[in-house]
């Protein structure tokens, strides 16, 4: 209906302005809806719904320890998500976060175990972080080179590079001459030895038992830098131009291949940093499946953020807390893990679906 009366139209517009922005309302409401459906499914499995909710809440934020653990999870998710939006600014879709985490974690472990431990002045953890970042950058950059040189679709190449990286991690913790801890140990699982204390990330609040570590500061810096680069820098504009129209960008004098490779390298590097932080901040030793889906969750975080660094922060926190809650729900309330995964999937679908709704309003 067309508003003929200008006064009425103004009032209608004002009313809309008073509300909380649609972009915030919609994801919140949709998460609640998804959780509601999840609870129905939990009830259908025969578990106690009340117990499940209690366990879920307790796991998310029941104690300082749990809050810290949830935020620690969010840190790695945020870094992978930032990497995703960095590449997508150049219209590239990096779905290889899982492999980039794996490479970053593996090389960070290697650096921490072999040499970095004795370094002074915090270099003991900075060097492994840098090594992990470089490893992820290499893994992402490889997809960029393939794209620039041969036009290989980066969705396929990053996915397949993940399928290579995950067995590489497995191989490294299976082989004694690589990263597997010596056989002399009592239990000899296929995993690396624990990294030296000096290489573990310092805790932010060492006194109250929270595992929250300085990865939070690193991630915060990364958020600001990525936001600045993508929104306010000439590099961000060039990435965007190349992504939108490579031909016109070439005509305007840009080296399009360079920007494609750069975008994928930075994107992979952020994933690698996320992997390194997982090892140095919380897990402390490498296992074959240490990345356990963080790359794919981070990909979802990046997708749902729709290119906004702030959106990545919100999404990463949401997923970090949900993951903590659902792990505890599985342990304490005996809800099958499959149901937990179904709930997560529901949230993703509902948020992604509602994004279409907000998109339509925004473009109007």
């Amino acid at each position: 209906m067309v508003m003929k009366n200008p006064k009425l139209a103004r009032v209608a517009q004002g009313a809309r302005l008073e509300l909380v922005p649609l972009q915030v309302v919609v994801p919140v409401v949709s998460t609640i809806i998804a959780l509601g459906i999840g609870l129905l499914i939990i009830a259908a499995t025969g578990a106690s719904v009340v117990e499940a909710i209690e366990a879920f809440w307790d796991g998310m934020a029941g104690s300082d320890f749990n809050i810290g653990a949830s935020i620690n999870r969010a840190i790695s998710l945020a870094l992978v998500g930032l990497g995703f939006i960095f590449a997508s600014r150049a219209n590239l879709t990096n779905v290889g976060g899982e492999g980039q985490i794996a490479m970053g974690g593996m090389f960070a472990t290697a650096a921490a175990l072999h040499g970095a431990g004795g370094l002074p002045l915090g270099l003991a953890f900075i060097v492994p972080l840098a090594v992990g970042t470089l490893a992820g950058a290499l893994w992402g950059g490889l997809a960029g080179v393939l794209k620039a040189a041969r036009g290989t679709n980066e969705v396929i190449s990053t996915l397949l590079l993940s399928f290579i990286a995950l067995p590489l991690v497995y191989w490294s913790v299976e082989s004694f001459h690589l990263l597997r801890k010596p056989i002399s140990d009592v239990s000899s699982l296929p995993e690396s030895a624990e990294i030296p204390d000096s290489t573990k990330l310092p805790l932010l609040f060492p006194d109250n038992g929270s595992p929250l570590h300085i990865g939070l500061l690193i991630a915060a810096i990364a958020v600001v830098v990525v936001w600045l680069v993508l929104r306010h820098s000439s590099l961000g504009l060039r990435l965007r131009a190349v992504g939108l129209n490579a031909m016109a960008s070439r005509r305007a004098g840009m080296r399009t291949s360079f920007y494609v490779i750069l975008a994928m390298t930075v994107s992979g590097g952020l994933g690698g940093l996320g992997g390194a932080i997982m090892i140095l901040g919380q897990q402390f030793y490498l296992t074959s499946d240490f990345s356990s889906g963080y790359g794919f969750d981070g990909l979802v975080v990046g997708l749902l953020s729709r290119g906004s660094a702030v959106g990545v922060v919100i999404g990463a926190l949401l997923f970090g807390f949900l993951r903590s809650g659902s792990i505890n729900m599985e342990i304490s309330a005996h809800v099958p893990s499959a149901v937990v995964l179904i709930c997560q999937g529901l949230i993703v679908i509902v948020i992604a679906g509602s994004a279409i709704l907000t998109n339509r309003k925004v473009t109007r």
Partner: protein
Amino acid sequence: MAVLELSGLTKRFGAFTALDDISLQIERGEVHCLLGENGAGKSTLCNLVFGVHRPDAGTMTLGGEPFHPRGPAEALQRGVVMVHQHFSLVPNMSVAENLMLGRASAVLKPQDIIVRMEQLAAEYGLEIDPEARIEDLSVGERQRVEIIKCLLGDPQLLVLDEPTAVLQPDEIDALLAICRQVALRGKSVILVTHKLGEISRVADRTTVLRQGRIIETVAMEGADIRSLVRSMVGRDVQSAGSVLAAAVDIEGKTPAKPSSAAGPASPGEAVLKISDLVYRDPHGVPRLDGLSLTVGTGEIVGIAGVEGNGQTELGLILAGLAAPSAGAIVVRGTPVGGRTPQEITDAGVGIVPEDRHAVACIKELSVAENLYLGAIGKFSRFGLLDKSARRKAAEAMMRDFDVRASSPDVSMASLSGGNQQKAVLARELSLDPLVFLLAAQPTRGLDVGAIEAVYNRIRAARDDGLGVLLISSELEELMAVSDRIAVIYRGKLVGELAAGSFSREAIGAMMSGHAHV
């Protein structure tokens, strides 16, 4: 007697009124032209008559009977036929087979079709081989098949939506002749166009549309083309020189040279020198085959030719988007063949590419971002963009080049084609250094006012001493603007005419490979 009578016809799309209270009569046996700029409502009007859309208000009568087609099928049944801008022919079937499509009879009789085709050939001069496959035909021949398809059923009214946009000069002549033949046989023709020259050659009456309204309907005998232009554009086109010259002097000989302050400058030293340029496409097919050309300072050299004879490739190579297989391109002593676009820009070459949307601009980016696409670093401090400085510079440039947009921050896509092209020209003509400008199909899809602005810019650049290469498929445009016209045919220049000796017929013959000068 009126065949078709429209009264009070209104059509809205959402809040946009495409046609507003249109009343019009099409007489029996007349060629009636619909003239208007892009978006004036010409195509919408055709679509109402052909039943593609239904009017929101108003009535139509056909041969005195109420006419409210609910779809093209009903319009066809009532004897209204239409040739669309995009053909609906099956490429890998023969002409006769295509003509049988849609004739709803269970038993196909190819012989009947061929007999009917022979009749039409005799009546209208619509010669075509029934056995030829559509994909082997030229665009003009395909259009002829569409017209034959329309005339098979002996219609009352033939609607042609911008039929000449895709044709080369001799095909246009043939088409206009066919229109007259159709009208002579008591049928009526509605011809949509924005080319003024065609109207003066073929129309009995012309209706001018602007913003969905009829401005005037005039009989063409003794009509003043200038007043038609005024009605169409809604204002006086300043120094309307070339557009009008092209329209009025359509017959060819020598178009009135528009006078510019400096006059057509006498060409000086060579700015661009192309020698023996060869380009083979990825399949090894030679697209440019030993092309040599020199453009001097202060002259506009036009390249005429039927599309697909190497013009596109020449444009891409000059822009640095394709590397020549052999030959040399030198701009003011600097070899630029096969160099990067940046090196070519640094050598002082401005490029207005043929494909505005794929090469010239990025429509999702803002106007300011597009104006400084090649100089992003210019407004950057420590890697961060100084957007307010860029906005100010962009505003100044938009004022200088009359780029109309509500702000430099709106997306390029929200601009009209004319303003997009003015922005591209603004960017390329603001390059420093600048000694040579390539303008490839610079007015394609633009309306009259914008075309005039583009011509004036190109002429001003010439008067400032630039060498300009103008590639165009519009012969009128080349004759109106160029100081010299070279004709390209199959990747080679086959002839050249100097200003004062331009002739439509001679150029047309060279374009089709028939003559050598």
